[in-house]
C-alpha cells in the first residue's frame, strides 16, 4: 500500500518531467519552443488515461469499479422511484415467498439435530427377510417401521430389546450409547390440577451421549438408571416454562406421574426439544422406572425379555472409528443373540411374572398387544389408553392408519405382533436363512420422526413459489426492457465516449442485482411474517406446538442471498444485452420516442415483451390449476358422508387405569360417569368407546371364518364400544339389536383370565356383511372359535347380533372396511357427548362431574368432533390455503405484467394512434385494437399454461381426492377467471388509447 501511494504520488512529477525532456529534445532538434512542447504533449498521449491506467495497475480495479457502478445505479433508481418501487415490491413478493417456504423446509427437513456434534451419532436399525419371533414390539415413531404382518417381506425397524441394548452398551462399540422409548401418557399430579403429559424413558447415558447441558439443576447420570435408585425426572425447557413458570424452585420438587412420586432433578437446555424431529416430550425419566409407571399387564417384565423389542438405540461413534467397523461389531452381537439365544415360550408362564401375581391368561398370551404407549396430546396415532382387550381368539393387531392427517401419528406406533410359528420347543428369534442384521444409519437422516408427513406438501409448495419467482422475474424483466428502451440515448452516449461494452453490461447488471438485493431484504421481512402466520395456523390445529423451531437462520439467509443474486442476473440479462447492442448513430441523432429509433429497437422489444407476458400468464395458470385441484380436494373431503352425525359432539378421553383403577372397577366407573354425564342439562346423550371415530387411530383383528381353510386368518376392523354409542352418534341399526347389560357381562368375562363358554356378542357393519356373508342372514352367525394351541389361547368366538350402517373409522380418505363392534370392557375410553347447542359451552359442567367422581382424574384430548375432522384435514387445509394464496398472487402478478406491457405499448404508439384518429378512425376501433391485443396475449398464455398443466398435474395425484389430475372443470374455471381478470387489466390502457387527443399526440415527440 505504501509503495503504491509513493509511486502514485511521484507519477505526476515523473510525467511532467518526461514531457519536459521531450520538449527539450524537440527544441534541440530545431523546433520552436511552443511547437516543441505541443509535439511532446501529443507524443506522450492522453495524460489522464495514463494516470488512470497506472492507477489500475495497483488497485483492485474491479472492486473500485463495482463501487462506482453501485453508486451510479442508486442514483438512477432514485431518479425513477415508481419503477424502483414496483420492481422491488414484485421481487420482494417472489423472493419472500420462496424464503418462507424454504425456511419451513429447513426447519422440518434439513436442520441438524439439536445436540452436540450430530454427525457422530448413529441409529441402529435391524432388518431380516422374515419377521423375527418376537412377542412384543413397540415403535416410538423415531424411524419408519414396516410392520410385522405375517408374510410381510423384509421387515425392518429400530426397536431392540433391553438385554440387547445393555449388551451393546457394555461391548463398548461406541464412545457412548443410549436407548429411549416413549413412556406414553402420564397423568401428572402434584403441580396444581391433574394434567396429562408426554414422557420419554431414557437410559442413564442419554444426556451424556447427546452432549447436552442442564438449564437448571442436573441431568441424568448412569446411577439414576438403576432399579434401586430414587425415581428422578428431567423437565423439558419449554414445559418447564409453561407449567412451572420457569421457576428454579422446581429442582428438588416432587411430582407424581401415574401416582408414582418422582423428584425433579433438573431442566434440559433450551434448544433441546427432543431428539427425533417433530416429537417433543415434556419430561424424561430413567428406563429403570418404566416398570413403576406402567400397568403390569402391559409391562410384561420387558427389562429382561429378549423377545420384547421396545427401545430405540443411538450411539456416538468413537473418533477415528469407521462406521463399517462399528456396524460389523453391533451386527455381530445382534446376530449372535437372535440366532443362538433362546426365546422363552409363551404358555406356562416362563416369562417371569411379577412376584406374587399369577400370570393373567390374557397377559401371558403372546398375542397380547403390549402397550401402545401413545403420548398425550394427540401426538400419538391413537387414543388407545390401555391394551385393547384381546379378542377372544387371542390375536389383536393394532395399527394406526396412515392418513393425510399431519398430526404426527408417529409416537406410539402401535406394537404389532408376529403371530408365532406353530412349533413348540426352544426357538431362536430368527434363522440364518432370514439373514438378520443391523445397519448403522446417521442419526440425522435415520431419525425421521414426523418429517415424512410434511415432505410432499412442502415440496409442492416450493414448486409453486418457484414458479411465482419466475413470474416476478419476467415481470421485472418486462419493466426493465421498457425502461431500457427509454435509456437508449444514454447508452449511446456512454458507448461513444469510449466505455467498453463489457463495462456497460456490468454496470447494468449491477443495477438489476441491486434491485433484486433490495427486493430480497424486503422479502425477508415478508418471509418472516409469512412463516409466522403459517406456524400459528399449524399450532392452532395441533394439540401441541409444531415441534420444529422455525426462524431465519444462516442457511435460510444464505438461500435468500443466493436467489436474490440469481434473480437479478436472470431478469437483468436480456434487457442489458439489448441495451449494450445499441446502434450508436441513429440513437444519438433521434429523439427518444421517434419512430425511427423505437421502430427498430421497439419492435424487437415488443416481441420479447409479448413473450414475457405470455410466459407469465402460462405460469400463473399452472399455479392456479394446481390450487384449484387442491381446493376441490379439500371440498370433496369435507363433504364426505362419514356415516354418523358429526355435529355438536364433544369428545374427551379419560384413563382411570393410570390412577389405579383395575378390572371391574373400570367398567363400573364408566357406567357411572356415563349416567352422570347424560344428566347434565344440554347433553342430549352420552356414550363411550375405546377410541373416538375419525381420530387417526384404528384397531384390526384377525379371526377364523367358518368355511375357510384351518390356518387362514380373516381380518376386520374392530372397535370396543359402550352402551348408547350408536344412539349418541346417530348410526342407525339396520337389523338386530344393540348391546344390553348381559352382553357386556359376557364380554367382560371373555376378556378375563378364563374365557366363558359364551360367544362375544358382536355388531357388524354393512361392509362386513358384504364381505363375509353375502346373501346369508347375518343375525346369529357365529365365527372365530378357536380351540387353542401353543401360541394362542382358546377362544369361544363371536356371534353377530345386529347390523349397523357403514361409518368411517379412522380417516376420511380410507375406504370403509369390514368392521366389528364389540362391547368394551376395561381399558381407557373416549366419551362422546351429543349436545343440544355449542359443545364447548358445557365443558366446565363436564369437568365438574368428573371431578365429583374422582378429583385426580384428568380429561385430555378434549375437542369437538368437528374440530377433530378439521385436524384430520389439517394438511389439506394448509396446502389448499397456501396454494390458493399463491395462485391468486400469481394471477395478480401476471395481470400487472400484462397491464404494464399494454400501457407501454400505448404510450409508445401514441403518435401512431393520434394519426389514426386524425385520419378518421373510430375511437371504439382503437379501444378494440388494444383490448384485442391484450386478450390475444392472455389467451395465448392460457392455452400454453393449460397445455403444460395437462402434462404436469399428475404429479399432484397422490394428494388429490375424488378429483382427476386433469379435471376439465377446474381448468376451464381457471381459464375463465384469468380471462376476466385479464380483460380488466387491459381495459385501462385501452381506454387511455381511446382518449388520445390527436393534436397533442402529433405534436408529442
Amino acid at each position, binding site marked *: 500500500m505504501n509503495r503504491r501511494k509513493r509511486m502514485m504520488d511521484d507519477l505526476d512529477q515523473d510525467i511532467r518531467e*518526461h514531457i519536459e525532456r521531450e520538449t527539450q529534445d524537440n527544441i534541440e532538434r530545431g523546433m520552436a519552443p511552443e511547437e516543441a512542447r505541443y509535439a511532446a504533449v501529443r507524443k506522450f498521449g492522453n495524460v489522464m488515461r495514463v494516470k488512470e491506467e497506472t492507477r489500475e495497475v495497483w488497485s483492485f480495479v474491479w472492486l473500485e469499479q463495482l463501487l462506482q457502478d453501485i453508486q451510479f445505479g442508486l442514483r438512477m433508481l432514485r431518479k425513477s422511484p415508481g419503477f424502483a418501487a414496483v420492481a422491488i415490491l414484485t421481487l420482494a413478493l417472489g423472493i419472500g415467498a420462496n424464503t418462507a417456504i424454504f425456511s419451513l423446509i429447513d426447519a422440518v427437513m434439513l436442520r441438524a439435530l439439536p445436540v452436540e456434534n450430530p454427525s457422530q451419532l448413529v441409529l441402529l436399525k435391524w432388518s431380516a427377510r422374515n419377521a423375527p419371533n418376537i412377542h412384543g414390539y413397540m415403535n416410538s415413531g423415531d424411524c419408519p417401521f414396516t410392520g410385522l404382518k405375517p408374510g410381510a417381506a423384509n421387515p425392518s425397524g429400530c426397536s431392540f430389546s433391553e438385554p440387547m441394548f445393555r449388551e451393546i452398551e457394555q461391548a463398548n462399540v461406541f464412545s457412548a450409547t443410549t436407548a429411549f422409548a416413549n413412556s406414553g401418557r402420564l397423568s401428572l399430579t402434584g403441580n396444581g390440577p391433574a394434567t396429562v403429559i408426554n414422557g420419554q424413558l431414557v437410559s442413564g447415558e442419554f444426556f451424556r451421549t447427546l452432549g447436552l447441558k442442564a438449564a437448571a439443576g442436573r441431568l441424568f447420570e448412569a446411577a439414576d438408571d438403576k432399579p434401586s435408585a430414587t425415581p428422578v425426572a428431567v423437565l423439558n425447557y419449554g414445559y418447564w416454562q409453561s407449567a412451572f413458570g420457569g421457576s428454579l424452585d422446581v429442582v428438588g420438587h416432587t411430582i407424581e406421574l401415574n401416582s408414582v412420586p418422582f423428584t425433579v432433578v433438573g431442566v434440559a437446555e433450551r434448544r433441546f426439544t427432543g431428539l427425533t424431529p417433530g416429537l417433543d416430550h415434556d419430561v424424561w425419566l430413567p428406563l429403570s422406572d418404566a416398570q413403576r409407571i406402567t400397568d403390569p399387564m402391559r409391562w410384561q417384565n420387558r427389562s429382561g425379555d429378549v423377545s420384547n423389542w421396545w427401545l430405540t438405540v443411538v450411539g456416538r461413534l468413537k473418533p477415528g472409528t469407521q462406521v463399517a467397523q462399528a456396524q460389523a461389531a453391533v451386527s455381530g452381537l445382534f446376530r449372535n443373540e437372535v440366532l443362538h439365544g433362546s426365546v422363552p415360550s409363551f404358555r406356562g408362564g416362563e416369562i417371569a411374572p411379577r412376584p406374587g401375581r399369577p400370570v393373567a391368561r390374557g397377559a401371558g398370551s403372546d398375542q397380547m398387544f403390549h402397550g401402545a404407549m401413545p403420548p398425550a396430546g394427540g401426538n400419538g396415532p391413537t387414543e388407545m389408553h390401555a391394551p385393547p382387550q384381546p379378542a377372544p381368539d387371542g390375536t389383536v393387531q393394532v395399527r394406526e392408519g396412515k392418513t393425510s392427517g399431519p398430526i404426527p401419528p408417529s409416537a406410539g406406533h402401535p406394537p404389532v405382533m408376529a403371530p408365532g410359528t406353530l412349533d413348540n420347543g426352544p426357538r431362536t428369534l430368527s434363522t440364518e436363512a432370514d439373514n438378520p442384521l443391523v445397519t448403522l444409519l446417521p442419526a440425522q437422516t435415520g431419525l425421521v420422526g414426523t418429517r415424512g408427513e410434511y415432505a410432499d406438501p412442502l415440496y409442492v409448495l416450493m414448486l409453486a413459489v418457484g414458479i411465482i419467482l419466475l413470474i416476478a422475474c419476467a415481470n421485472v424483466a418486462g419493466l426493465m426492457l421498457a425502461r431500457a428502451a427509454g435509456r437508449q440515448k444514454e447508452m449511446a452516449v456512454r458507448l461513444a465516449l469510449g466505455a467498453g461494452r463489457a463495462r456497460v453490461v456490468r454496470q447494468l447488471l449491477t443495477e438489476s442485482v441491486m434491485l433484486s438485493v433490495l427486493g430480497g431484504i424486503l422479502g425477508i421481512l415478508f418471509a418472516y411474517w409469512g412463516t409466522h402466520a403459517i406456524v400459528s395456523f399449524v399450532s392452532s390445529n395441533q394439540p401441541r406446538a409444531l415441534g420444529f423451531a422455525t426462524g431465519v437462520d444462516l442457511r435460510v439467509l444464505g438461500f435468500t442471498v443466493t436467489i436474490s443474486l440469481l434473480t437479478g442476473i436472470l431478469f437483468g440479462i436480456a434487457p442489458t444485452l439489448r441495451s449494450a447492442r445499441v446502434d450508436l448513430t441513429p440513437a444519438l441523432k433521434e429523439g427518444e420516442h421517434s419512430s425511427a429509433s423505437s421502430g427498430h429497437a421497439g419492435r424487437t422489444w415488443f416481441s420479447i415483451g409479448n413473450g414475457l407476458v405470455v410466459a407469465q400468464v402460462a405460469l400463473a395458470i399452472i399455479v392456479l390449476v394446481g390450487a384449484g385441484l387442491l381446493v376441490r380436494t379439500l371440498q370433496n373431503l369435507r363433504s364426505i358422508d362419514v356415516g354418523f352425525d358429526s355435529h355438536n359432539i364433544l369428545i374427551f378421553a379419560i384413563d382411570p387405569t393410570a390412577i389405579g383403577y383395575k378390572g371391574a372397577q373400570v367398567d363400573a366407573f364408566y357406567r357411572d360417569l356415563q349416567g352422570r354425564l347424560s344428566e347434565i342439562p344440554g347433553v342430549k346423550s352420552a356414550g363411550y368407546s375405546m377410541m373416538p371415530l375419525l381420530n387417526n387411530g384404528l384397531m384390526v383383528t384377525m379371526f377364523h371364518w367358518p368355511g375357510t381353510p384351518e390356518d387362514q386368518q380373516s381380518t376386520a376392523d374392530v372397535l370396543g364400544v359402550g352402551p348408547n354409542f350408536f344412539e349418541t352418534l346417530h348410526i342407525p341399526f339396520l337389523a338386530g339389536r344393540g348391546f344390553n347389560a348381559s352382553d357386556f357381562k359376557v364380554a367382560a368375562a371373555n376378556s378375563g383370565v378364563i374365557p366363558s363358554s359364551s360367544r362375544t356378542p358382536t355388531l357388524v357393519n354393512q361392509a362386513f356383511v358384504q364381505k363375509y356373508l353375502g346373501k346369508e342372514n347375518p343375525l346369529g352367525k357365529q365365527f372365530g372359535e378357536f380351540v387353542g394351541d401353543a401360541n394362542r389361547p382358546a377362544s369361544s368366538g363371536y356371534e353377530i347380533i345386529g347390523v349397523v350402517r357403514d361409518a368411517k373409522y379412522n380417516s376420511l380418505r380410507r375406504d370403509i372396511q369390514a368392521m366389528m363392534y364389540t362391547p368394551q370392557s376395561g381399558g381407557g375410553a373416549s366419551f362422546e357427548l351429543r349436545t343440544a347447542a355449542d359443545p364447548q359451552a358445557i365443558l366446565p359442567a363436564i369437568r365438574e362431574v368428573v371431578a365429583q367422581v374422582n378429583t385426580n382424574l384428568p380429561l385430555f384430548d378434549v375437542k369437538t368432533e368437528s374440530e377433530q375432522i378439521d385436524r384430520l384435514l389439517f394438511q389439506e387445509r394448509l396446502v389448499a390455503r397456501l396454494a390458493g394464496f399463491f395462485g391468486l398472487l400469481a394471477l395478480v402478478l401476471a395481470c400487472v405484467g400484462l397491464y404494464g406491457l399494454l400501457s407501454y405499448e400505448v404510450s409508445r404508439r401514441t403518435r401512431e394512434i393520434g394519426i389514426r384518429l386524425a385520419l378518421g378512425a373510430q375511437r371504439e376501433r382503437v379501444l378494440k385494437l388494444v383490448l384485442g391485443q391484450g386478450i390475444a396475449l392472455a389467451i395465448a398464455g392460457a392455452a400454453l399454461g393449460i397445455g403444460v398443466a395437462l402434462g404436469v398435474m399428475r404429479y399432484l395425484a397422490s394428494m388429490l381426492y375424488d378429483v382427476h389430475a386433469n379435471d376439465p372443470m377446474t381448468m376451464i374455471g381457471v381459464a375463465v377467471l384469468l380471462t376476466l381478470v385479464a380483460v380488466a387489466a387491459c381495459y385501462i390502457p385501452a381506454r387511455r388509447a381511446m382518449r388520445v387527443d390527436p393534436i397533442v399526440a402529433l405534436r408529442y415527440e
Partner: protein
Amino acid sequence: MSTKERKERIELLQGTLDLLILRTLRLGPTHGHAIAKAIEFNSDDVLQVEQGSLYPALHRLIKRGWIAAEEGVSENNRRAKFYRLTAKGRRQLAVETGKWDKLAGAIARILRPAEREGEP
C-alpha cells in the same frame, strides 16, 4: 481512430513493451524518458510507442518485482526516477526473450516455407 482500433493496437504491444523495457534496462539503470528514446532509436524508428503507455508498463514491472525504482539525478542535473533491472528481472528477460525467439521463428517458418523445402 475509433475506440476499437486504439484498444487493439495497445493490447498487441502490452506484453512486448514489457520485454523491450527489460532489454533496454539490461544495459544499465535509466529513467523513463531515456527508455522511450532508446526503444525508438534502437528500432530505427520503426516502433513508435505512445510514450505515455510506458508508465503503466513500468509500474506493472515494478509490481511484479522485475524492476526497481529509485530517485536519482539525470544528466542535466535534474531530478529523475531511475529504473533498474533486478535479478529476478534479469532471469525473466532471458525467459521472455527465448519465448519471443521461438514465436518469431515459428511465424517465419510458416511465412517462408520455401526456405525449408529448398527451391526446386
